[in-house]
C-alpha cells in the first residue's frame, strides 16, 4: 500500500519545467521602450480579485525543513499534505514549538499568540517608473506584487471542564500604499479574520466556528492563488474529523459586496415631519455562500501520502426590488450558482515535496467569484450560463541544495451574456522557480513563466477574416535572497533582490489602453528589493 511517490513527482516536475522554459523564452518581439502607465483589467477569477492575500503552500505545515524540528502536537493543516493522518488536537498544553521554527503551528491553549504574513517591495522598471503587476492572466508571477501585510492576534484556551479548546482569531490586513512611499498618513486597512473556533466541542473531533473568516485550502504559492476553495464570508461552520482521518467540513456565510446588485439606498423624508432626509435601503440583499468539503489523506511510505478532496459550493441571492425612478420599482430576480471541484495531491513528507492537481467548475452566480457582483447577465437578469472552469497543477521538489517550485493553471470564464466580449476569456500560465541554496542562509532563485490569454475580442487577421486575439507573454526572474531560517521553498523570512524580465508579444500589448507603457513595450525590466515573511499565523495552519 505504501509507495514512494518521489520518483513520480520528480518526473512530473521535470516534465513541466521542460515544457515551460522554451515557451517563455520565445517572447521577445522587441518594441521601443516608452513611458506611461495603464491598466489591463482582469475579470474575476475564483478568488475575489480584490482579495489580496498570498501565503503559504500546501506543503507548509508540520512538514519541516531539513533542519527544523518535527511538527508540534497541534492539529496539522488539513489542507496541507500532512505527513500522517490528521491527529486529534490534544486537550493538553502541547510542547512548545522549536524556537527556530516560527512557521510551525503553535501549541494550543497557551494564551496569546501573534502571527503575520507580509511582503514589502521597493522597485521599478529600468526607466525608474513605479513597478506594477505586469501579468496578463488573473494570477501570475508574484515578483511584482504590491505590498501587503497581515497582523494576527490570537487567543488559545483549553477548557478542562469540557475538554474543548477554543481559538479566537483577529487578523487585520494592510494593503499598499504605505506612508513611507506616498507620504499620506493613512492606511488601506481591512479586518479579515474575526472568529471563534471551538474544537472537541462535546464530541471528540467535532468543531464549530463562527465569525469572519478566511476559509480556504491549499494554495499555489507562485501564483498567490487558492484554486479550489477560497472563501471570505461572515458566517459559521462545523467540521468533524473521523477516526480514519477523514475530515468533513460544512460552512455557510453571508457577504454583501459593495455594489448596486446587492444594495440600493434612497433618500426619503424622515418620519413625523422631521427635518432632512433619511437613507432607506430599497434593495438590501446578501449573498449566501455555503461550502462542503470532504478530505482524506492516505499515508504512503514513511512520511508521504496522497490527499483527496471533494468540494462544493452553493451561492444564492434572494430576489429583491430596486427603484428605477422616483417611486417606480423593478424586481430583481433571485439567483444561484454552484461549484463542484476536486483535488488530488501527493507528498513525500520530506522537504516540502508535493504535487497537487485540482479541477473546479463554477456555474451561474458562483462563476463570478465570491466577493464580486455579477456582470453581463442574461436578458432576464440572471447569471445562468456563466461559468468558470479551472484546472491547476502545482508542486514542489527539493533535493540537496536544489529545489523546484512550480504552478500552472488553465481557466475559462464566460459571463452570462450571449455575446463574447472582453471579460470572456481563456487563459493559462505555467510558472517554475528553480532555486539553489548555499551556505544555509542564502540562495538564488530563477523564475520563468509562460502565460497566454484569449479574450472575447477579435482582430482582423486577413481581410474580412477575424480571429480571437491570442496574447502570449514570458517572464524571467532572478532572485538572490537571504533566508535566515535556512533552505526550503517555504522557508521564510526572506530578504531578496529581484530582477524580472518581461517579454510581451504584440497581442499582449494590444490588451492595454492606448499609450500605456505596457502597450508600447515589448520588453520590460523590473528591479526591486523586498522582504517576505510569515510566521505563526492561521493563514498557514488550521
Amino acid at each position: 500500500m505504501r509507495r514512494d511517490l518521489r520518483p513520480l513527482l520528480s518526473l512530473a516536475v521535470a516534465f513541466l519545467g521542460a515544457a515551460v522554459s522554451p515557451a517563455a523564452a520565445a517572447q521577445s518581439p522587441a518594441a521601443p521602450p516608452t513611458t506611461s502607465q495603464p491598466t489591463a483589467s482582469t475579470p474575476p477569477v475564483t478568488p475575489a480579485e480584490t482579495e489580496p492575500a498570498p501565503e503559504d503552500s500546501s506543503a507548509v505545515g508540520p512538514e519541516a525543513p531539513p533542519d527544523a524540528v518535527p511538527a508540534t502536537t497541534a492539529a496539522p493543516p488539513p489542507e496541507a499534505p500532512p505527513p500522517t493522518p490528521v491527529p486529534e488536537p490534544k486537550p493538553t498544553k502541547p510542547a512548545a514549538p522549536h524556537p527556530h521554527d516560527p512557521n510551525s503551528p503553535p501549541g494550543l491553549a497557551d494564551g496569546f499568540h501573534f502571527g503575520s504574513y507580509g511582503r514589502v517591495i521597493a522597485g521599478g522598471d529600468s526607466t525608474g517608473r513605479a513597478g506594477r503587476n505586469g501579468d496578463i492572466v488573473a494570477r501570475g508571477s508574484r515578483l511584482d506584487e504590491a505590498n501587503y501585510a497581515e497582523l494576527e492576534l490570537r487567543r488559545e484556551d483549553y477548557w478542562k471542564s469540557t475538554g474543548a479548546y477554543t481559538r479566537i482569531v483577529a487578523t487585520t490586513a494592510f494593503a499598499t500604499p504605505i506612508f513611507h512611499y506616498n507620504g499620506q498618513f493613512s492606511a488601506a486597512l481591512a479586518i479579515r479574520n474575526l472568529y471563534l473556533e471551538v474544537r472537541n466541542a462535546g464530541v471528540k473531533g467535532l468543531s464549530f466556528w463562527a465569525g469572519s473568516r478566511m476559509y480556504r485550502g491549499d494554495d499555489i504559492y507562485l501564483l498567490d492563488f487558492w484554486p479550489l476553495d477560497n472563501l471570505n464570508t461572515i458566517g459559521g461552520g462545523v467540521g468533524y474529523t473521523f477516526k480514519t482521518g477523514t475530515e468533513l467540513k460544512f460552512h455557510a456565510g453571508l457577504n454583501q459586496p459593495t455594489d448596486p446588485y446587492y444594495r440600493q439606498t434612497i433618500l426619503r423624508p424622515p418620519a413625523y415631519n422631521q427635518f432632512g432626509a433619511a437613507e432607506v435601503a430599497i434593495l438590501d440583499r446578501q449573498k449566501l455562500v455555503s461550502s462542503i468539503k470532504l478530505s482524506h489523506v492516505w499515508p504512503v511510505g514513511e512520511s508521504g501520502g496522497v490527499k483527496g478532496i471533494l468540494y462544493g459550493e452553493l451561492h444564492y441571492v434572494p430576489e429583491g426590488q430596486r427603484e428605477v425612478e422616483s417611486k417606480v420599482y423593478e424586481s430583481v430576480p433571485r439567483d444561484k450558482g454552484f461549484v463542484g471541484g476536486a483535488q488530488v495531491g501527493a507528498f513525500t513528507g520530506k522537504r516540502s515535496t508535493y504535487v497537487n492537481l485540482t479541477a473546479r467548475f463554477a456555474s451561474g452566480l458562483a462563476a463570478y467569484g465570491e466577493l464580486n457582483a455579477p456582470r453581463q447577465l442574461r436578458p432576464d437578469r440572471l447569471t445562468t450560463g456563466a461559468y468558470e472552469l479551472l484546472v491547476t497543477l502545482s508542486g514542489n521538489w527539493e533535493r540537496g541544495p536544489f529545489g523546484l517550485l512550480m504552478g500552472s493553471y488553465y481557466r475559462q470564464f464566460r459571463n452570462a451574456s450571449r455575446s463574447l466580449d472582453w471579460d470572456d476569456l481563456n487563459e493559462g500560465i505555467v510558472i517554475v522557480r528553480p532555486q539553489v541554496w548555499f551556505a544555509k542562509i542564502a540562495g538564488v532563485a530563477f523564475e520563468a513563466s509562460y502565460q497566454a490569454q484569449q479574450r472575447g475580442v477579435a482582430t482582423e487577421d486577413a481581410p474580412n477574416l477575424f480571429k480571437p486575439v491570442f496574447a502570449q507573454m514570458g517572464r524571467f526572474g532572478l532572485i538572490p535572497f537571504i533566508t535566515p531560517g535556512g533552505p526550503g521553498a517555504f522557508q521564510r523570512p526572506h530578504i531578496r533582490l529581484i530582477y524580472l524580465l518581461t517579454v510581451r508579444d504584440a497581442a499582449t500589448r494590444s490588451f492595454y489602453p492606448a499609450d500605456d507603457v505596457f502597450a508600447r513595450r515589448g520588453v520590460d525590466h523590473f528591479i526591486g528589493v523586498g522582504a517576505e515573511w510569515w510566521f505563526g499565523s492561521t493563514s498557514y495552519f488550521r
Partner: protein
Amino acid sequence: MHVRRLSLALAPALLAAAGCLHFDTLEEPVKIATHAQDWREAVIYQVLIDRFDDGDDGNNYLLDRENMARYHGGDWIGLENRLDYIQELGVNTLWISPVIKNIETDANVDGYHGYWAVDLTQPNAHFGNLDDLRSLVRAAHERDMLVVIDIVANHMGQLFFYDMNLNGVPDILLQGTGTRPQGTPVPPGFDQSGFTHITEYDPDFNPLGIQAFTSLGPAGPAPIVFPYDPKSGHVTPMPPIFQNPEIYNRRGRTFNYDDPQQLLTGDFPGGLKDVNTTRCDVKQAFVDSYARWIELTDADGFRIDTVKHVEREFWRYFTQRVRQRLAAQGKTQFFMFGEAFDGRDDLVGSFTKNDLPSDAELARENSCDDGPKLTGDQLDSAFYFPQHYQVFRDVFQDAASTDRIANLWANKTVNYGTVAPKDSAGIPPYKALVNFIDNHDVARFLYFARQRVDNDPAFAGKSLRDKELRLRAMLQNALLMLMTAEGVPCLYYGTELEYRGGNDPSNREDMWRPYPYLGESAAPPAFDTTGPTFVFTKKLIEYRKKLAALRRGDTKVVWSTTRTGDETDAGIFAFERAGGEAGNNYVLVVFNTNQNHDSRTQFDGATMTVSAPAGAVLVDVLGGNKKYTVGAGGVLDLTLPPVSGMLLVPQQDV
C-alpha cells in the same frame, strides 16, 4: 528561432487541450451575395437599435433608461432575439441604426441614435461587436429578411470646437451687456453692446469660416480644436483622414436651409461637423468605410442620412463606386435610399435622377480615381418625405383634400428618376420610393392625430375611449395607405403597438415598455402580437405579399376630391393597383379620410368608374369580405364611414 518555434507549438497545444474561445461568425470570412430580388417586395421595419431590446447585458454601459436622450441598452442581439416577433408581423426588411462608433455623449445627450460618428471603422460597442452584427444579418437572411444599414456622409459627430476666443477650451460665450437688442443700431449717445450667445461647438454659419475674436476685435480664422476626452467619446477620429482639419468646411451651424452654401457646407445643428464632400480623398474614404461594412456583414442596403446637405457630385461618386465595388464581389441589387428631410418633392426627387453634369465638371469628378467613368446615376430611391407631409399629415391626420395625393403622385415621374441606375437595384426610383407614416425624426402619427381629435368639436364631451378609438381608425387608415401605395413601405418600430410619442426624442420609446393600447388603461406585455393594430398591420402585409398588384402593379387614381366639407365625396380617395409587372392581378383601394361623415364615391351625379369589368365582384377583405359588384361601364358607388378604408380584391383572388 528554435525557441520561438517551440513556443508557437506549445501555445496552440495549451489551448487545444482545453478548448478555444470561439466566435460564431468571425472566423469564417463572410461571402457577400445578392439576397434581394425586387425591392418592391420589401416591407421595411425601421428599428432604433438602442430602443428595441436589450439582448446583451455585456454592452450596457452608462445607461439611463429614464432619460430619453441617453442610452437605454438596446443592441443587435436584442433585435436578433426578437426576429420571431418581427416575422410574425410580416415585415421582411430591417433598417437598423448606424452601426459605427459614435461620440458617447455631448451636452448631456448620448449618441444612442448613431448619427454622431467618430470612428467609421469600429462598431458602436453599445450595440454589440462585429460578431453580433454579423449574427443578426445572418439570422435575418436565414429568415429571408434583408438588412439595411443607416449611414451618414454629410457630417461627423461633435469632433471639434472652434476656439473663437483663443483660450483653448470650448466655451459657451455670453458677451455684451444685453442692454441693446442684438442687431439693432446703436442709439445716438449710447454705446451699449448687444447680447451675444455663442457656443464654440456650434456657432452660427459664417461664409468666411468661423472667425476668432478678442476684446480688441477680429482675430482671423478660429482654430479648431479636437478635444481628447475618452470618457465622452471625443477620441481620435478614424479613418485617419478625418483627423485632418482641412477636410472640414468649418463654417459653423446651418441656420438658413434655403441658403445653398449653408445647406451644403454648414455644420449640422447640434455641432455635427460638416465634411467637405467635394474632396476626392473624402469621397474615397466614405466609399471605403461604408462599403467595408457591407463586406463585413453582407447587409443589403443603405439608408443614407441628410442627403440634401451633400453635393450631387458626391452622390454620383459614392453610389456608383459602392455599386461597382459590391457587384464585383457578387452583391448586386444593392439598395440605397436617401433621406432629405424636406417636403419639396422636386428637391427630394433630385437625388434619384440621372444628374449628368457638364463635361468639364464630370471630368473633374472623374479625376478622383481610375475607376469606371462616372455617369449621372445617383440614389436608388428616396425616403418619401413629401408624401409624409402631404398625405399622411395633411390628409390622414388633418383631413385635407385628397386631390393633393393625386397631384403628388402625378409628379413622381417628373420629380424622381425614371431609369434605374446602372448596377443598381434595377427599379426606376419613382417606382421604389420608400413610403412611411412617421419615423425617428418626426413625431409619431398618433401624437398629432391626438391633437387633431382633441380639438375636433365633434369630439367635445366624448369619452377618452371614444377619442382613442378614433385615433386607432386614423392610424389604421394610414397603415392601409402605407401598405398599398406604390413603392416600398417602411414601418417605424412601435407603430404596430400604437406608440404615440411626440417629437425627437419622445418618439424613440423603448419597445420593452409599451403603451396601453388605445382605449385601454393597462399596458400589454412587451412585444405583444395580439393587439388590434398589430393584427391589422399583419393582415395588410399578408395581402401585400399575396397580391402582386400591391407590390408591382402600376397606380391609377380613380377618385380624388378637393372637397372637405359636407359634400358627398368629401375625403374620398381611391386608386387601383394593376398592370405593370403584376400580370392580371388587380386591387382597388378606397379611403374615406373625412372625419365627420360617411362619404361615397360619387359627387354631383358623377360616380367613380374603375378598370374592373362590369359585373366583376370585388371583395372588401378588410370589411368582413363584403362584396361589391362593378356596374356597367365600370361604375362603382361605394359608401364609407368616416375615417375608414376598403381593400377590394376580385373575388377569385381572395
